[in-house]
């Protein structure tokens, strides 16, 4: 059985595509899947940094395309998880070094050996994005509850819909601040899914630990008790087919007074 090729994309830059790729990939591998991650942001590669693999890269995607190495040689194994591999983007070339056909070819080859091929797309809707989606059958759209990010996500959804190869796509809402949603100063999860009319794959709460994890080159799913890490792990489980409920960010948690009120309000059975 061949693997699933999932492109991770957003339109807008800086909403967390690469962070999401690193964490979903790591979480899938931790759950026992064989995972290959491809960084297609040629010239601006970063996935290697988030994975802490920047010193292990010898060959890149472009080297393979230029037949300087075999595909196996260009795949860098993760430090901890042997079933997780990274195909890094070249830092020196530009986006014209790869064509859509070549990307599709690489994805087709990788899905023979891996259960999941995650393609980290560059920002924008130009050639780099077209390359990234060329070999994919599914898509994950990353957005944040900000107007510009939601607008760009809508554009991406339009392009994905027009693409025959993408069978389904789902949304991940990143950097959600429950307190701001509760005070009606941030678009809620329902607002965003309503506006974009798209299915939700997961919600990632804003978490300062993300910065710490990037500093260390260690995906946040490897940190214990980090909120964002738990959310990414839940996303991985949903991709694997498990039913994991998405927590409710709309209603504020019960306060001390509410709890006391509840004690008096609960009917007592006699």
């Amino acid at each position, binding site marked *: 059985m061949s693997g699933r090729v999932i492109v991770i994309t957003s339109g807008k830059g800086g909403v967390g595509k690469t962070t999401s790729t690193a964490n979903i990939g790591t979480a899938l591998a931790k759950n026992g899947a064989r995972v290959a991650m491809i960084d297609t942001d040629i010239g601006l590669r970063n996935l290697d940094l988030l994975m802490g693999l920047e010193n292990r890269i010898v060959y890149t995607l472009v080297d393979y395309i230029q037949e300087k190495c075999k595909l196996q040689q260009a795949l860098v194994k993760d430090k901890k998880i042997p079933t997780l591999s990274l195909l890094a983007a070249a830092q020196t070339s530009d986006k014209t070094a790869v064509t859509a056909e070549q990307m599709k070819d690489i994805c087709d080859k990788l899905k023979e050996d891996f259960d999941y091929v995650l393609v980290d797309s560059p920002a924008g809707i130009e050639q780099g994005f077209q390359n990234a989606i060329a070999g994919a059958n599914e898509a994950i759209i990353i957005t944040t509850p900000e*107007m510009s990010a*939601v*607008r760009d996500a*809508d*554009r991406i959804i*339009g392009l994905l819909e027009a693409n025959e190869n993408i069978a389904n796509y789902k949304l991940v809402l990143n950097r959600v601040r429950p307190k701001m*949603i509760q005070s*009606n*100063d*941030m*678009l*809620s999860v329902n*607002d965003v899914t309503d*506006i974009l*009319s798209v299915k939700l794959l997961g919600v990632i709460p804003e978490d300062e630990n993300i910065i710490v994890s990037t500093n260390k080159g260690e995906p946040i799913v490897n940190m214990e008790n980090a909120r964002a890490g738990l959310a990414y792990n839940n996303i991985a489980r949903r991709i694997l087919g498990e039913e994991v409920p998405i927590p409710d960010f709309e209603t504020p948690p019960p*306060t*001390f*007074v509410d709890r006391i009120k509840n004690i008096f309000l609960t009917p007592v059975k006699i």
Partner: protein
Amino acid sequence: MKLLDRKITTKINDMISDLVATCSRVLSTEAKVNEEASYDSKDDAKNRLKLVLMHDRSQLTPCQMEQMREEMLDVISRYVEIDRDALDLCLEAETNTIALVANIPVVRAKNEEEIQNNIENVQEQLQEEVQETAGVQEDIQQEEAQEQPGHS
């Protein structure tokens, strides 16, 4: 020890802020009224986004919208007298479909004779245009016919 201290202080801080929040909520009914009266910034974002996405999805440029408006006005004014400046043409969204909504204030209904005249005028204009383009095409054909023997 220091780590433990820090954990305890953050926990205490959390508790205090939670208490302050609940107290202020219970005590200040006045603040609550004000809050309800003020417009949430989230609603602003939602409404603005809906509008901008509608235009994005329709893929009509403002210039094309204006042209469509003008052409619609021409057609409608053959049948009824309308206030051209008051015409309001906009896009509205209902769940997944986009609707084109026009609000056209009618000043006066035109009588049968006027309507007939207008239609005849338009038909004449159209015929003239057709004849003109046919004339131009003939000219081009003649020119080409003249040029060809010269080339060979």
